[in-house]
């Protein structure tokens, strides 16, 4: 097992969470996405519910960023 790779993942999770919390944002979508990467390595076919959930989170995040500033 590649220990450095594991540490890199943990580091990424902490960095993302820290950035989001500092900005007063919920860290949950990003952390969920990182967890999904982890699960995705060995998982079987995705359920319709999993796909719909990912689609909804991403669509909401994109729509929010794309609003006029």
């Amino acid at each position: 097992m590649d220990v450095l790779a594991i540490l890199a993942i943990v580091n990424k999770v902490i960095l993302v969470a820290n950035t989001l919390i500092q900005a007063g944002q919920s860290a949950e979508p990003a952390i969920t996405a990182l967890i999904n990467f982890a699960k995705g390595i060995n998982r079987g076919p995705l359920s319709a519910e999993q796909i719909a959930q990912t689609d909804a989170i991403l669509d909401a995040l994109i729509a929010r960023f794309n609003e006029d500033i």
Partner: protein
Amino acid sequence: MKLIRTLLLATALSAPLANCAQLQTALDVASFTNASIANPVTPAMLNNLENAAIVVFAGLNAYRSSCVQGAIPPSCKTVIRQLQVYTRQIPPLLTQLRTFVRTNDQVNAVIVYNNIAQLVASLKAQAVQNNVGV
């Protein structure tokens, strides 16, 4: 406390991975392998791309919030408008890609997948260039 539990969960989930190098690659959108007829776009590939995009957009929205709150220099509005040139192209492409993957139209799925992967990679490069954490 909930966050600490979540971080510990993420760590615990990542520990037993058989192929950590693959995960590390998946974390970097810019390094996604191009799709091709020999390497078709599967629902899992699409899901990985979307999860990577969620991380990128979570970071972008954090930057946007800091900008709106006035916590960073006002030039951030110009940076956001520059980034929106890329991000506003993504939703229609994403809708097409989801349809193509669902109907297994690989000829079109490959083209659109590669377009989105390139777009997100360009977006990420532009963001990093402007010190936007993604």
